[in-house]
C-alpha cells in the first residue's frame, strides 16, 4: 500500500533507509527541522541545515521515487537561546520560497519554559505573516500533558490562525482528545519506547475515528524505526479494518493536510 510518512528526519538516516522505505510503499515524506542532538552555535549552522533540507535531501529521496517535503524552524530545545532563535526566525524567510517547504515546524515546547513559549509565539507570528502551515512538536513523557495544554492555550488564543492548517504531533491517549476537539489535526508518533506503539495507535483510531488523524515514524538519530507506518498498517489489517480506513490514515489524511500548502503536489 502506498503511504506518506508526515514526520521523518531523513538527515539522520542512511540512503539504505530510503531504499527500504520505497520498497515498503513510502511515496512521500515530510521532514520537520529539529534538534541535531547538540546545540548549534550560530545562525549559519541553521542556514546550512536548511540548505540540506531544501536542496540535498529532496535529491537523495528522489533517487528512490520518494518525494521529500520539509518544514523550517528552530526547535523547542534550542529555543531556550532567545538571541539565536530570533536570528534563525529572521533568516527563515530566505527559504520559504523553496519548492519543498510546506510550512513552519516542528515548533513547540520541550521543558515547557517561558523562553520556549516566547519563541513558539514568535514562530506563530512568522507563520501568520507568511501564510504558512504549522507543524507542532509536543514534549515527551512527563512533560507532554502540561506542554500540550500550554501549546493549545497559545494556539486557541490566536484568532489569526486557521486551525485546519495546524498539525499537533506526538499525541497520546491523554492529549489526543484536547487536540481534535479544538479543530486541529493530530499526529501519532510510533516510537519503540517513549511515544506510541502501533497497537495503541490503532486503539486511538478506533476510539476517536480517522478524521484529522495521521501517523508517523518520526525516525531520527535516536532509537526509532523509520518503517513504523507499515507496522501500523499490519496491525490495522490484523484487526480487520478496511483498506479504505487504512489508506485514509496513512495516505489520504496527510495528502489532504499537506495540500493546503502550495508546494505539495502529490497526486
Amino acid at each position: 500500500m502506498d503511504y506518506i510518512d508526515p514526520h521523518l528526519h531523513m538527515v539522520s538516516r542512511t540512503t539504505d533507509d530510503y531504499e527500504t522505505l520505497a520498497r515498503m510503499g513510502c511515496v512521500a515524506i515530510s521532514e520537520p527541522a529539529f534538534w541535531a542532538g547538540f546545540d548549534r552555535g550560530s545562525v549559519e549552522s541553521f542556514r546550512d541545515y536548511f540548505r540540506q533540507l531544501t536542496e540535498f535531501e529532496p535529491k537523495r529521496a528522489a533517487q528512490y521515487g520518494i518525494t521529500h517535503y520539509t518544514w523550517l524552524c528552530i526547535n523547542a530545545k534550542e529555543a531556550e537561546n532567545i538571541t539565536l532563535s530570533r536570528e534563525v526566525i529572521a533568516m527563515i524567510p530566505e527559504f520559504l520560497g523553496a519548492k519543498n517547504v510546506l510550512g513552519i515546524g516542528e515548533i513547540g515546547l520541550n521543558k515547557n519554559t517561558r523562553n520556549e513559549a516566547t519563541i513558539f509565539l514568535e514562530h506563530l507570528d512568522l507563520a501568520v505573516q507568511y501564510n504558512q502551515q504549522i507543524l507542532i512538536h509536543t514534549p515527551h513523557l512527563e512533560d507532554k500533558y502540561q506542554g500540550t495544554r500550554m501549546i493549545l492555550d497559545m494556539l486557541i488564543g490566536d484568532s489569526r490562525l486557521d486551525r485546519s492548517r495546524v498539525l499537533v504531533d506526538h499525541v497520546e491517549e491523554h492529549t489526543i482528545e484536547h487536540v481534535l476537539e479544538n479543530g486541529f489535526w493530530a499526529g501519532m508518533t510510533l516510537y519503540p519506547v517513549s511515544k506510541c506503539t502501533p497497537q495503541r495507535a490503532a486503539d486511538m483510531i478506533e476510539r476517536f475515528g480517522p478524521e484529522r488523524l495521521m501517523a508517523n515514524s518520526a525516525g531520527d538519530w535516536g532509537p526509532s524505526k523509520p518503517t513504523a507506518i507499515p507496522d501500523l498498517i499490519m496491525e490495522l489489517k490484523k484487526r480487520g479494518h478496511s483498506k479504505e480506513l487504512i489508506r485514509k490514515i496513512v495516505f489520504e489524511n496527510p495528502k489532504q493536510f499537506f495540500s493546503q500548502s502550495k508546494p505539495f503536489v502529490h497526486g
Partner: protein
Amino acid sequence: MNTKQDILDPIVERTAHQVIADEFLIARAKILELAATLDRIERSSGDVEDSIPMNLLAQGMHILCDEEVDKAKRVQLLMSRQYDPQWQHTMSITRKGV
C-alpha cells in the same frame, strides 16, 4: 466525506473473547517483564520502596487492577506533570491583538 461510522467497518468490532484470544500471549509477556523488573529491583542492594518512580509504578499497577475505564489515559496522567491553566499569567506571557 466519510463519517467515523461509515469508515469503521463493523467487522472490526471484536468481542472481548476475541481480543483476549488475540492478545493474551502479548499481555502475558508484558506482565512477566514487569514482574521480572520488580524481582530485579528486589534482588539489588539499596532501598527504593519510597522512591518516586516506585511509587508511580505502584499507583500505575493499582490502576490496572481497579474497576474503572480509560486505563491507558489514567496511567498517562498519573505519570504527567500538572497543567496550570494560569501558566501564562504566572510566566508573564502577554500577547496583544491576536
